[in-house]
């Protein structure tokens, strides 16, 4: 009798369904996965070590590059940690702007997720629709920060600047005629808030469209239902947070349970799954987008009615205005100290977490009173979820591995850091 051996397969690091640079060593018995061993770190940039050698402010753009699909949420946790160590208050308008952009980010992230997850599983159309809507939201990013991805918009003490009164317009070119660009420019005729209001009013309808493509689609259900089931007990053991935990039926959301910024003033619901399989996690994320849209609308209403400052007036932390700097000696000194030495954060340690689109994103900061962090530890949700890969994939067919990676919603910027 010939000797039978399990087959070992290298999945990635250049696999289109690996969502980045994941190398996974799969041990297979026929087509059934016996063991999955993810090898990560191919994108390791030592963000935490770099941050120890940069001033507090200089690390803000590094945060964008962690989970590069939900940029502003990463900045949020980092800025919030510094603010808590400093004990400074953020103006209420800046808090609303942060919440609004957190929810925009959540929609951005989930749209990319549903598009790419669809691609992985074989629903090729989804990504085209998802990217159409993402375009409007990255335009909102661009309008406030000038960058479509790596915004660096949140700063300790508030946000970089107030929302713009007008949006950039498309121009006629040899590729696009005036008639073609008109519908795009019509939406961009007002302020950023008008533009987002228009988006928020269209978006629920568009979500319904996506659901007609996927939710009751037979192939979609055959690929997702009962794949990667995680019981609530196992979810807690494996440290799951966010949609992964809620998909397993535990109603835990930091925005409700440990509210930060102005989430306690807003009205929204937390969707919870029942079976803990990939399909439930899909449903949870789809509903989260609807809820984010509700929060977005509430923020737009509030921001329209309440103008005000968006940056702390503590100029030992936040840079003074250009005008004040040029006319006032005190502000000139603040500006000089901020630009040469940076802010000093009092000695102490703090852990601040936000409900990131992927789960709980936490920043653990230790300061020894210097102008640089002593230690920065990023708690990435994707890292934790991917560590459960072996458990989730064992016993499934090899094709389901792709579904499970997709439903974990992993991004390697944050896993490898």
């Amino acid at each position, binding site marked *: 009798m010939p000797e039978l051996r399990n087959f070992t397969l290298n999945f990635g690091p250049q696999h289109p369904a690996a969502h980045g640079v994941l190398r996974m060593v799969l041990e297979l018995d026929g087509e059934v996965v016996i063991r999955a061993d993810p090898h*990560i*770190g191919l994108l*390791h940039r*030592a963000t*935490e*070590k*770099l941050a120890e*050698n*940069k*001033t507090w402010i*200089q690390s803000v753009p590094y945060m964008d590059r962690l989970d590069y699909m939900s940029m502003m949420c990463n900045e949020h946790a980092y800025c919030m940690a510094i603010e*808590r*160590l400093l004990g400074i208050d953020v103006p209420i308008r800046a808090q609303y702007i942060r919440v609004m952009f957190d929810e925009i980010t959540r929609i951005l992230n989930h749209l990319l997720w549903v598009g790419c997850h669809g691609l992985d599983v074989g629903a090729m159309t989804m990504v085209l629709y998802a990217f159409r809507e993402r375009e409007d939201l990255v335009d909102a990013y661009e309008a406030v920060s000038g960058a479509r991805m790596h915004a660096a918009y949140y700063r300790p003490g508030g946000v970089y600047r107030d929302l713009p009164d007008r949006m950039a317009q498309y121009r006629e070119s040899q590729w696009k005629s005036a008639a073609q660009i008109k519908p795009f420019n019509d939406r961009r005729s007002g302020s950023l808030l008008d533009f987002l209001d228009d988006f928020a009013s269209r978006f629920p309808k568009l979500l319904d469209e996506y659901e007609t493509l996927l939710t009751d689609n037979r192939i979609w259900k055959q690929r997702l239902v009962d794949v990667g089931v995680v019981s609530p007990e196992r979810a*807690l*053991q*494996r*440290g799951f*947070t966010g949609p992964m935990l809620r998909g397993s039926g*535990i109603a*835990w959301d930091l925005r409700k*349970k*440990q509210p930060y910024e102005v989430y306690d003033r807003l009205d929204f619901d937390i969707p919870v799954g029942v079976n803990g399989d990939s399909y439930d996690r899909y449903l949870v994320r789809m509903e989260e987008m609807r809820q984010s849209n509700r929060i977005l609308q509430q923020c737009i209403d509030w921001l329209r009615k309440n103008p005000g400052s968006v940056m702390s007036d503590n100029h030992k932390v936040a840079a003074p205005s250009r005008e004040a700097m040029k006319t006032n000696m005190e502000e000139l000194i603040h500006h000089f100290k901020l630009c*040469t*030495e*940076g802010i*000093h954060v009092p*000695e*102490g*340690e*703090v*852990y601040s*977490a936000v409900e990131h689109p992927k789960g*709980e994103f*936490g920043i*653990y900061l*230790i300061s*020894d*009173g*210097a*102008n*640089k962090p*002593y*230690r920065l*530890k990023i*708690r990435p949700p994707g*890292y*934790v979820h991917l*560590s*459960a890969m072996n*458990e989730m994939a064992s016993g499934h067919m090899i094709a389901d591995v792709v579904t499970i990676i997709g439903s974990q919603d992993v991004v390697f910027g944050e896993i*490898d*850091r």
Partner: protein
Amino acid sequence: MSATLEALSQILHKHLGDRLRSLKIAHDEVTIEVDAADYLSVMQTLRRERELGFEELIDLCGVDYSAYGNVPRQTRRFAAVSHLLSIANNWRLRVRCFCDDDAFPSVPSVTSIWNVADWFEREAFDLFGIVFPGHHDLRRILTDYGFIGHPFRKDFPLSGYVEMRYDPEQQRVVYQPVTIEPRETTPRIVREATYGKAENA
């Protein structure tokens, strides 16, 4: 300080008793320190005791205290810091455990209590060289295959020791000593507590 934190610290005192080295409340967070010898039993109590109910280990990381502040270090060099979360009671806790031996830092593994600790402990081992006895598969995780050293230690230079390039003659990727100089644009400054106060002028 909120009543919840007060209640939590009382429950901690009740269940941990002498095993509690110190308990601090700052920035609305509770931090406890325990000895490495008691670490595992403390973590078991925190997980199993219903009143405490820490079902989730949110984070576990290594810290190297060797360059902390301007003053000579009073504590041991390495610590493992965990962040726990109780979903039932909606509270958090930070547990710090200093490693007894600076030359060979070691802390018992908590993977049997929270399975999620697996990768966190691998990471702390990889980046700081803290060993976790009881961990079944303590491999490097984030650094390159065959990497030497523990890069997040404070005595490891930011630019590292080796760099990688493609060698056209050998037609393969080779490692060589780094050719870049470390540079610091903004020096690290720890101001004394009285800095900038008008009465000291």
